[in-house]
């Protein structure tokens, strides 16, 4: 069975500082990996995804993530955060196909301070 672990429940950081949100997964088969962002009282917005190919993927709003198969990780990074990045971030895994449900991690709250 698949599972996703987000290692930090909350990450406080000052504006313009770099940030890394950690995500580890477990699966017995090849997976697809995603990061979604949820702003307060809003839905889930896709930040970026890894399906195949280059292990470094770039997403919206200056975020990027690196897929590391040997460490089963998919950490999210941004070199310089803004106040507007304050939100809940979810890492998710899917086996793909027509039954490709998403398994989410517990979420990481990114708190950007001025």
């Amino acid at each position, binding site marked *: 069975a698949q599972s996703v672990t987000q290692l930090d429940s909350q990450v406080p950081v000052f504006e313009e500082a770099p940030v890394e949100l950690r995500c580890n997964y477990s699966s017995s088969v090849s997976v*697809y990996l*995603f990061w*979604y962002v949820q702003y307060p009282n*809003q*839905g*889930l*917005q*896709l930040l970026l*995804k890894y*399906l195949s190919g280059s292990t470094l993927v770039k997403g919206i709003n200056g975020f990027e993530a690196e897929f590391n198969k040997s460490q089963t990780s998919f950490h999210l990074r941004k070199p310089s955060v803004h106040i507007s990045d304050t939100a809940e971030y*979810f890492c998710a895994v*899917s086996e*793909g196909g*027509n*039954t*490709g*449900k*998403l*398994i*989410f*991690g*517990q*979420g990481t709250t990114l708190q950007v301070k001025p």
Partner: protein
Amino acid sequence: AAGVIQSPRHLIKEKRETATLKCYPIPRHDTVYWYQQGPGQDPQFLISFYEKMQSDKGSIPDRFSAQQFSDYHSELNMSSLELGDSALYFCASSLTGKETQYFGPGTRLLVL
């Protein structure tokens, strides 16, 4: 670009009542997923449909049922509502062969 539409956006019900949530996928998307997000929790997969057939089932209570119609929209029917059903219900859609799911804004259900 058109997004996933969910209705209603907010719903208040009493215990033991029924509720119907609707989801309209992105045009040409043929797969629909339903997720439940409790307060302060991560979204949990409930059920999915592909080409109007149930394709996968997660932790969906027997009191809930869902279906996908010929126009690909989907409805989640919830009966004998309990206080613990209060949550944000998301619908997501995708296109066959494409792995990315796009989420709607959610329906916030409050059971009193």
